[in-house]
């Protein structure tokens, strides 16, 4: 079993609520709201107009620069293109499609004649056109990761850690769709030209490991499953690399710098689907769970499905629900409305009605150092908190606050209930503002000097 990474915490996994329930298909929604930003990078530009007829898999948003295209997830009529609330906070231009319930597949979706005969370039092109992004939540465009990594990457890792509590979508996929995971992993091996792909899975999913091993044996696939000891944030890209290969990605660096590339289980399935059927990312498996959900489930639904429909499908929420989260409880974003759609990176919708929150009115640091032991990036959260509280920007920068990945492990471990992660988000903004101001000042000075010389 692979050694663990440094630091981290071990929350109750809370996965029993959903890990034995098969993935259910949601009844087709009457309308879907597809936000034009579901990836890391600039939002897409809509390429359809209000009133247009669209079909499943038809491209409706085109990206520029770093990004991935967006496709219609149902067939029907475009009713509106307007800003709507979305899971990353605030509003985002979204394409609203009224479902005609015909489920007509677009002509753009074409399965390649022989998927196994495709060249690497063709496969990358398919991944790019399919709008695949890091489906674990980071939403980094997958084609960029692949094309940037070819030649440099020696170790291709599949992230099946699923270390966030409650979430079981990947676990269910391992049990129900192992051949898609192994198939996708095999294509990844081909694209990178490596002889084996390692799937890292936390050992609380033993049956998932067995299911995949069975398929690997049957297909003689170039894939190995590596069980990992449970610890959050194992599913963090850099932590997974450390746990499996022992290598550390340098600060500010990319996995490719240490010869690694990491793909989520879900991303791998999307790659398999795109290459074998030509179908882009139009569906997403979402774990709907938490103390506030009447009947927790894993549900597969079209991208753009309103979250309220998912809640309905799970029997609604209980009285006293005070928190709705898109994503896991450690890194997910709390929502102010249920009026948001499922996006490519939405792995879970959680509702809380019990005492998960546990805030205290006047938290005071007791210097216990548990945050230091918990930080997987080896930072010292307690000192960073003091600097951020006092607005000491230079000290914040020297304490390497920009390396903080906001995993929440420190705040989870904190017995004093300090708002550490929250403060670091603020602190990072302070540092960014200062950097921008310094740059502007330097440029102004340069301009003034240039003027003087002239």
């Amino acid at each position: 079993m692979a050694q663990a990474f440094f630091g981290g915490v071990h929350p109750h996994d809370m996965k029993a609520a959903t890990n034995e329930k098969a993935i259910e298909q949601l009844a087709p929604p009457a309308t879907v709201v597809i936000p034009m930003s579901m990836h890391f990078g600039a939002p897409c530009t809509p390429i359809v107009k209000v009133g247009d007829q669209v079909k499943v898999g038809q491209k409706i948003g085109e990206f520029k620069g770093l990004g991935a295209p967006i496709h219609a997830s149902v067939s029907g009529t475009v009713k509106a293109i307007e800003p709507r609330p979305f899971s990353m906070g605030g509003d985002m231009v979204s394409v609203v499609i009224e479902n005609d319930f015909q489920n007509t597949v677009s002509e753009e979706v074409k399965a390649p004649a022989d998927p196994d005969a495709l060249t690497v370039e063709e496969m990358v092109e398919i991944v790019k056109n399919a709008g695949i992004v890091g489906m674990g939540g980071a939403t980094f465009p997958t084609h960029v990761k692949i094309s940037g990594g070819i030649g440099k990457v020696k170790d291709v890792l599949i992230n099946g850690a699923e270390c966030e509590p409650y979430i079981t979508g990947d676990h269910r996929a391992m049990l129900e769709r192992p051949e898609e995971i192994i198939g996708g992993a095999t294509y990844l091996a081909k694209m990178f030209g490596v002889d084996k792909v390692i799937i890292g899975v936390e050992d609380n999913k033993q049956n998932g490991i067995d299911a995949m091993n069975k398929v690997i044996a049957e297909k003689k696939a170039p894939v190995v499953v590596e069980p990992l000891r449970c610890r959050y944030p194992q599913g963090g890209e850099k932590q997974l690399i450390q746990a499996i290969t022992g290598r550390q990605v340098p600060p500010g660096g990319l996995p490719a710098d240490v010869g690694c590339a990491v793909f989520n289980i879900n991303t791998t399935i999307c790659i398999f689907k795109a290459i074998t059927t030509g179908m882009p990312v139009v569906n997403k498996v979402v774990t709907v769970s938490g103390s506030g959900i009447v009947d927790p489930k894993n549900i597969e639904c079209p991208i753009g499905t309103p979250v309220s429909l998912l809640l309905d499908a799970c029997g609604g929420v209980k009285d006293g629900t005070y928190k709705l989260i898109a994503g896991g409880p450690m890194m997910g974003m709390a929502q102010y409305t249920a009026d948001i759609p499922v996006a490519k990176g939405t792995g879970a919708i959680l509702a809380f009605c019990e005492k998960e929150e546990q805030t205290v009115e006047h938290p005071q640091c007791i210097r216990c150092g548990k945050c230091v032991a918990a930080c997987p990036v080896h930072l010292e959260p307690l000192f960073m908190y003091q600097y951020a509280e006092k607005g000491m920007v230079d000290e914040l920068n020297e304490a390497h606050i920009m390396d903080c990945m906001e995993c929440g492990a420190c705040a989870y471990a904190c017995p004093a209930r300090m708002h550490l992660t929250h403060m670091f988000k603020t602190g990072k903004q302070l540092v960014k503002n200062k950097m921008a101001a310094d740059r502007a000042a330097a440029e102004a000075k340069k301009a003034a000097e240039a003027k003087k010389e002239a």
Partner: protein
Amino acid sequence: MTDYKNLKLIATSNPHIRGSETTRSIMLDVIIAMCPALIWAIIYFGVEALLLTAVSVIGCVVFEGLYRKLMHKPQSIDDLSAVVTGMLLAFVCPATTPLWMILIGDFFAIIVVKQLFGGIGKNFLNPALAGRAALLASYAGAMTTWLPAGTKAAIGGGMPVDVVSAATPLAYLKTGDLEGLKQIASVGDMFLGKVGGSMGEVSALMLLIGGLYLIWRKVINWQTPVAYIATVAVLTVLFPKAGGAEYMLYSIFGGGLFLGAFFMATDYATSPVTKKGQLIYGIGCGLFTVFIRYFGSYNEGVCYSIMVMNCCTALIDKYTKPVRFGVVKSDKKEAAAK
């Protein structure tokens, strides 16, 4: 479709769940860990030990509560840290300490050392030790009057009639009179706590049980106590004043070493935050303890050595920062070369 508009949702930063440990649960664990030593003190020194502890705890809680109230600060007595301070202060005083005297110590510990610096987590000295140091400086006589082994303290403090103060094992160790010490206590007596000394410090066994409980509950790291006790052990076995390994055993079981190592030096507010720092800190405590016991004018060095190291905590923290993720040793060398 159900209407979810009526939900009163709060949108706070991640993480949305928290661990089960709280400041209060940690303090409660420390209190539980001190119970074996307290029970031994009651058995050995009599009910007065319980009375002294109770008065000290009440004193600390009242002082803290009053200060927070009068200064219009959020109330903090429910975190139980004042209870811990009260117990620890009683533990480091002789069982014969007059009750009014311990209240003065409480006042100094809670008001001057803890609250004036901002309350829990902000003080740079261990409140209980600073309280004891203040009492020792003010009432040297009462603070160094020790009951002979096997005598009970009078109720209300002070020596029982007809009982004369006796020297503690530390006095014998200071002069190197190992033979004399052997006559009043065996190593086993020292370990069990059948010797004179401060109320809560005599039984190394009871303190060890409490300390192991704290390590098992992950309240404290092993680094500080192990480094501390090991340093004292190594120095006393290498440079014994008399005898050899036996002198070492008497030294580590004698005085307040176990109480200091497990309960005082591990105080969060006044010790380093990294494990490496805690190791250095423990070694520092051990060095100063032996220096004071060997060369100082006091018989016991635990209290002052920890206070000296308290003052070094910021420095240790500064030089034991963890190397951040992704920076490997060769990188550091390259950076240094540049």
